[in-house]
């Protein structure tokens, strides 16, 4: 029996709607193709503030927050940055709710030495308005910028060695947090790879402590980034996070949200196209027409300014690992759809947004991150597509970058990728030098640019997908050279792409489309007669 979110295309099926950047396209899929839809949004908590209070007063494997407080102590609150959720959520953001309650409790217990750090790691500094959006005007006005600020991974005086793992991995974190009597981490968990030890050990670290896990070797050993237990990345982060937690007092607060990404007028984008009402069908046609006839700037303005009506589905507090176990369970409950059997050809639409381009453009390197990084990895147990299979994506692949946020990406794409696409070679030959570029570092520290090492990490993000997939075909590219730089083939239409993909697929290939966003994860089991899959982890690369 197939899950209700898995739909098989028949002769009467309507075309499927896919994102192609900030446009929507309709595609006809062959009869027999599977389409995996997101689960309906889980019900939000009726009283989020009460749930937050309950969580911090009834934590997992820890004393309640109030019992950890004493007058005059030094507290650092670290906060997830605006890369989560996507798109940014309607006010009040979950983090604002949590911070309001936590700050009130700190004040009640005579704790007034409080600093808040946006845990950006090597992401770009968030702007004042972005910070204001996540913490709310009241907290922003009271704390920004002296006691509420962005993490700076390149401040030589601002980082401190916490310790080393048994394998010699150095845990170097924000000194303010290291020196604090208590670190409270306020997380917003969008996908299962977020949160847990990643919050402190990655969010508050710098390049030196990213090297042990953000490298192509580790990425190749990952099965799914979204399944922590089979992700080598998660294994290394956990090892380093344990060192942090042994040496620092950390109280973790994690929150989960449902997948209500689109508000009421656009909520039909969650649905099976065959089940749209006549009003919704008309609205869809109108939306596609409007997006096709609206200038790019206007489309971007609309998408950027429409926040998502996400709702809080869970809040868990206490000791990092105990908390994260509950968070993951809730995450999987929202996202996971079970399917049986892998596909020969996987199809997915690439939207206009990723965690790394909030308020800017999804540039070519991020298209790669979405295709071979995020979309490919939206699975548990076995990849949606077979080893050597084909991924078909839709995106214009425009050669366009934000010249402030993503300046180092331009150099990476146009200077390094023509030299080589081999992640190992890029890592060995260029990463160190690039990451030390003083001009780019100055833009990261004083401006709003990503750290110069970030484009390398973005390329490595696609590494597991690159190793697994045989081909990537992009439909709707407005140029040939960017897909070529990324190692993609191009096709003018989905029908052409499918024809090309069939050339290297078995007869009567299994075709599966991941209908997202909103986020959906496939839990892929193999048919009884099939042997173990050829995912990187199980093919002898040593993943945990």
């Amino acid at each position, binding site marked *: 029996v197939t899950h209700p979110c898995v739909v098989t295309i028949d002769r009467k099926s309507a075309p499927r709607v896919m994102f192609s950047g900030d446009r929507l396209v309709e595609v006809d899929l062959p009869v027999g193709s599977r389409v995996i839809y997101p689960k309906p949004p889980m019900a939000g908590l009726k009283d989020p503030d009460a749930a937050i209070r309950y969580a911090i007063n009834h934590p997992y494997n820890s004393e309640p927050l109030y019992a950890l407080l004493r007058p005059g102590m030094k507290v650092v609150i670290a906060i997830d940055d605006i890369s989560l959720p996507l798109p940014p959520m309607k006010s009040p953001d979950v983090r604002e709710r949590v911070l309001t309650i936590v700050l009130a409790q700190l004040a009640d217990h005579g704790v007034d030495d409080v600093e808040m750090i946006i845990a950006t790691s090597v992401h770009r500094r968030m702007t004042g308005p972005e910070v204001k959006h996540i913490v709310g005007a009241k907290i922003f006005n009271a704390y920004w910028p002296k006691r509420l600020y962005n993490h700076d991974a390149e401040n030589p005086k601002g980082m401190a060695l916490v310790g080393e793992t048994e394998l010699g991995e150095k845990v170097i974190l924000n000194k303010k947090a290291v020196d604090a009597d208590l670190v409270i981490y306020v997380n917003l968990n969008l996908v299962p790879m977020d949160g847990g030890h990643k919050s402190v050990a990655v969010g508050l670290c710098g390049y030196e402590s990213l090297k042990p896990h953000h490298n192509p070797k580790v990425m190749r050993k990952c099965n799914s980034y979204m399944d922590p237990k089979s992700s080598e990345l998660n294994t290394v982060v956990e090892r380093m996070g344990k060192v942090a937690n042994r040496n620092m007092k950390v109280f973790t607060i994690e929150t989960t949200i449902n997948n209500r990404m689109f508000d009421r007028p656009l909520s039909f984008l969650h649905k099976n196209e065959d089940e749209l009402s006549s009003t919704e069908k008309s609205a869809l046609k109108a939306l596609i027409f409007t997006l096709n006839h609206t200038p790019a700037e206007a489309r971007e303005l609309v998408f950027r300014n429409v926040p998502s009506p996400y709702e809080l589905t869970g809040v868990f507090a206490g000791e990092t690992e105990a908390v994260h176990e509950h968070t993951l369970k809730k995450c999987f409950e929202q996202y996971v759809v079970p399917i049986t059997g892998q596909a020969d050809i996987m199809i997915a639409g690439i939207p206009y947004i990723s965690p790394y381009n909030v308020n800017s453009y999804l540039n070519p390197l991020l298209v790669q991150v979405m295709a071979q990084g995020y979309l490919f990895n939206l699975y548990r147990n076995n990849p949606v597509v077979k080893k050597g299979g084909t991924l078909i994506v839709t995106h214009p692949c425009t050669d366009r*970058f934000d*010249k402030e946020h993503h300046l180092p990406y331009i150099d990476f794409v146009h200077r390094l990728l023509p030299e080589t696409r081999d992640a190992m070679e890029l890592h060995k030959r260029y990463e160190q030098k690039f990451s030390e*570029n*003083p*001009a*780019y570092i*100055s*833009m990261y520290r004083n401006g709003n*640019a990503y750290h110069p090492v970030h484009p390398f990490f973005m390329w490595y993000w696609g590494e597991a997908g690159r190793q697994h997939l045989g081909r990537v075909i992009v439909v709707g590219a407005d140029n040939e050279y960017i897909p070529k730089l990324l190692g993609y083939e191009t096709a003018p239409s989905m029908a052409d792409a499918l024809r090309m993909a069939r050339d290297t697929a078995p007869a009567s290939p299994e075709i599966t489309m991941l209908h997202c966003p909103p986020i959906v994860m496939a839990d892929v089991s193999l048919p009884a007669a099939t042997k173990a899959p050829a995912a990187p982890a199980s093919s002898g690369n040593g993943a945990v």
Partner: protein
Amino acid sequence: VPASYFDVDGTLVRTNLLHPTVFFMVNQASPLRSLGKVARGILGTPAMVLAEMRDRRTFNEMLYGLYEGISQDRLMTLADEAFDVVLKKAIYPGARELIGACRDRGHDVVIISGALDFLMTRLADHLGATHVIANRLEIHEGYATGKLLRPVVAGPEKAKLLRDHARAHGHDLDECFAYSDSYSDVPMLSVVGQPAAVNPDAALERLARAYHWPVLNLDRTP
């Protein structure tokens, strides 16, 4: 090992060539001499404005003409004070950090400026730069003649001096960095592999954005 070449006025400090010149003019041996120097400067201003619009080198030569007749002793005596009063206070907050980052990565840090050498050596010592390429006043019998020794450091000549310096010190230009605030330094920025615009004027900012050069703001600290 790469080198990082820094223009100074507007790039590392808020001041320009006029500020130290005015300091020297108003601090002459007698009030009357100061008055004469300042008056000469004011009278020459329209011509200097025109020269600046046409050619930075001519402007430099006209400006340094005002130093004519000042003794070398006086120049050196006033240099420390001029640095403290005029330049030191005008250093951008991010300048020391950027130069420090270059030094940490083993770069030679070279100040390349149309300002006068005895001020630039003090700035270099203060910021931790390793080399100075700057203008030098001609001194005859202990007094400034008001002329500059060749080569005059300005405009396209800076590009040549940068290349010569890199060659003499074994730096690969493709690996070198250059930083400036002014469109007049585009030749210098263009000869290195890693140019960057710092607090740029409008023309340089347009060019930098078009060519994807980093645009830095050293007037802002984290």
